């Protein structure tokens, strides 16, 4: 038996198929992964993401600590509630994990890291914080519910207290708000509008049920994966890992090179990777015909070295197979993928594949 979130019984009652995810018993789907995918693209779905790890950072050197820990710069967080996506690098410039940091106030931050990497991350963070006058506190008593889809905010707003509704609806993208017991952020992992809501464990099942009652449909990790793939959002362990830098994972935009004297962990090796013009690139693939691209399939590019699919699958919105891949440097639009012994034609495309319900690439 794995670890269970406060919503475990709700999932069972709703007929979820439960799978192990990083040591947690989580819902894969509640009947149909495809239907859940479309619900999020067209209306509203709710995801239990309580397995994710929430860490609060406080103390007089919190900012300095995070400026050392993260490849992105928390100095970019100019006002309370603002969120920042970043990678946390090892000394070789590889990715220890990707995370979101919320600025809660002067020298107060909230960091959300992945569930599957929790032990490794906490060890890494606790080690890194030692030289700083800062404290790291894991908030294990919090549950997290993501409501996602074009109608998600509108529907979820009806179940939050009157006192906070207006402010919650006024949140700009990638901003959060402490709303009484709740922390509401306009973030997500689906490519759709929505909120991620942190709340005390004891409130989670009641809040979840209220969301369901107003028409937000429970969605499992299966749909979460196809939604994030279409949205071109990386998954740690597949698209990013400790042996590849963010530059080789399509995450160059998350690295703050300025100011030049900010000495974040991994900066030296990362600078070398940046100077290497023959480094692998990261791009999307669209399968031209029928079939399904899968993780780790070999990508063949005419006259160049092989690449590899890091995440592949069926895109329910495109009704075609798509993938993210690490590919040899160069300008080319076509490649082939070794699908179970057959070379199938793919087009190399710029991600995302889908954003806010709309297909972003030419089919």
């Amino acid at each position, binding site marked *: 038996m794995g670890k269970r979130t406060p919503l475990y019984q709700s999932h069972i009652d709703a007929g979820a198929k439960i799978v192990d995810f990083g040591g947690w018993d989580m819902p894969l789907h509640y009947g149909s992964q*495809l239907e859940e995918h479309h619900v999020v693209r067209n209306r509203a779905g709710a995801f239990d993401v309580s397995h994710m790890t929430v860490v609060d950072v406080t103390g007089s050197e919190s900012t300095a600590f995070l400026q050392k820990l993260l490849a992105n710069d928390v100095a970019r967080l100019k006002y309370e509630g603002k969120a920042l996506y970043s990678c946390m690098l090892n000394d070789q410039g590889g990715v220890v994990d990707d995370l979101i940091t919320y600025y809660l106030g002067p020298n107060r931050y909230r960091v959300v890291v992945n569930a599957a990497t929790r032990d490794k991350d906490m060890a890494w963070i606790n080690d890194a914080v030692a030289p700083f006058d800062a404290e790291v506190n894991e908030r294990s008593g919090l549950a997290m519910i993501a409501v996602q889809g074009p109608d998600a905010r509108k529907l979820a707003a009806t179940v939050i207290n009157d006192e906070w509704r207006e402010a919650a609806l006024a949140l700009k993208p990638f901003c959060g708000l402490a709303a009484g017991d709740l922390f509401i952020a306009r973030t997500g992992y689906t490519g759709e509008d929505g909120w991620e809501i942190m709340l005390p464990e004891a409130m989670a099942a009641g809040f979840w049920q209220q969301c369901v009652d107003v028409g937000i449909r429970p969605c499992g990790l*299966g749909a979460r994966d196809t939604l994030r793939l279409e949205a071109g959002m990386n998954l740690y362990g597949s698209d990013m890992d400790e042996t590849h830098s963010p530059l080789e994972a399509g995450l160059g935009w998350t690295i703050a090179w300025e100011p030049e004297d900010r000495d974040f962990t991994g900066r030296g090796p990362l600078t070398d990777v940046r100077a290497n013009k023959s480094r692998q690139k990261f791009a999307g693939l669209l399968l031209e015909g029928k*079939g399904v691209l*899968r993780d780790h399939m070999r990508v063949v590019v005419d006259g160049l070295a092989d690449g590899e699919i890091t995440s592949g699958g069926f895109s*329910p919105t495109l009704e075609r*197979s798509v993938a993210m891949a690490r590919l040899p440097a160069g300008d080319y639009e076509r490649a082939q993928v070794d699908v*179970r012994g057959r070379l199938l034609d793919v087009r190399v495309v710029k991600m995302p594949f889908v954003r806010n319900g709309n297909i972003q690439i030419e089919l």
Partner: protein
Amino acid sequence: MSELPGDLRYTNEHEWLRQEEDGTVTIGITDHAQSALGDLVYVELPEVGQEVESGGEMAVVESVKAASDVYGPISGEVVAVNEALADDPEKINADAYGDGWIVRMKPSGDDSETMDPDAYQVFLDELEE
């Protein structure tokens, strides 16, 4: 879990076989198999006229989760394939024992090791444990 149709034979690879009156055998995957695979998104069918060997590759079913080989439960010649699956692989999810059939074969010999519904049910129950 839904009741197993009584007129079918089953394999431990979770395929079902129906003996047709004209001597051919219709083959598909069981409700247990489709449920374990999840939503199907692609089915690779054999060619009509192709010879399939018992235990050899016959078709591939791909779900949102993974690709799975469907092995020939008997040897024989493929006489029909369910073309509708090319556009609607989810027919297998919706109706595994009916519209979701995969191939029809003309058996070349009696080499099949199959179970009746009761035996297959016991097999499934043992898997659950």
